[in-house]
């Protein structure tokens, strides 16, 4: 079974190892890919069809019907912003479609606050070799295929 995981934001694809946070860069919670977002304010969208099982202002997890969970983290250390500048478009427990707006935010404002706006997208608890068709470095639009998760 494979799961297509879409980019939550438009920007530049970078490998997880480039993320300035050891937990993500060392794939401690799972493998994935990161996107350096365009600076324009906009909505981060769900990477898969599923249920929003965890929702913070700056990050969320969507779990599919068969239990695959994908984490989207909007910026690094953004928990410190206490939700300021983030707008939730869904509630925890809500069903979402891939590509549906989940959180509105402003990457430029995050960077002006001295933080990285890079968005890690993580296949939670996936095996290290379970990602295939991983998008390489370069531009990507929100909703484009970021990687395929082989389960």
């Amino acid at each position: 079974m494979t799961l297509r995981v879409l980019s939550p934001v438009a920007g530049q694809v970078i490998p997880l190892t480039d993320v300035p946070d050891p937990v993500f860069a060392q794939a401690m919670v799972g493998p994935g890919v990161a996107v350096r977002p365009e600076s324009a304010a906009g909505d981060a969208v769900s990477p898969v069809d599923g249920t929003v099982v965890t929702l913070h202002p700056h990050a969320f997890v969507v779990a599919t019907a068969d239990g695959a969970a994908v984490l989207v983290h909007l910026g690094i250390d953004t928990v410190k912003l206490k939700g300021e500048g983030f707008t939730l478009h869904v509630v925890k427990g809500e069903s979402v479609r891939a590509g549906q707006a989940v959180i509105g935010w402003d990457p430029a404002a995050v960077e002006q606050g001295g933080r990285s706006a890079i968005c890690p997208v993580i296949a939670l608890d996936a095996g290290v070799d379970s990602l295939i068709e991983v998008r390489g470095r370069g531009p990507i639009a929100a909703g484009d295929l970021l990687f395929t998760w082989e389960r």
Partner: protein
Amino acid sequence: MADDRAAKILAAIGGPDNIIEIEPCITRLRCELEDGGKVDEAALKAIGVHGVVRAGGVVQIIVGPEADTIASDIEDLL
């Protein structure tokens, strides 16, 4: 996750008296501690945490997606 993981983590980071603040963030517990030297990394690994990252006075314990639940269980023990 109604298990004893919260109690074990609390013990491994020096007990209630060592906690200034614990903040969950999706997959990790950000622990601001009185004395970071009291953190028993071997004990944390034995509990099954994914990793321990020290950044300044904050010790981050990577527990996976149940971080919110574990943090709230720890709060209940304080």
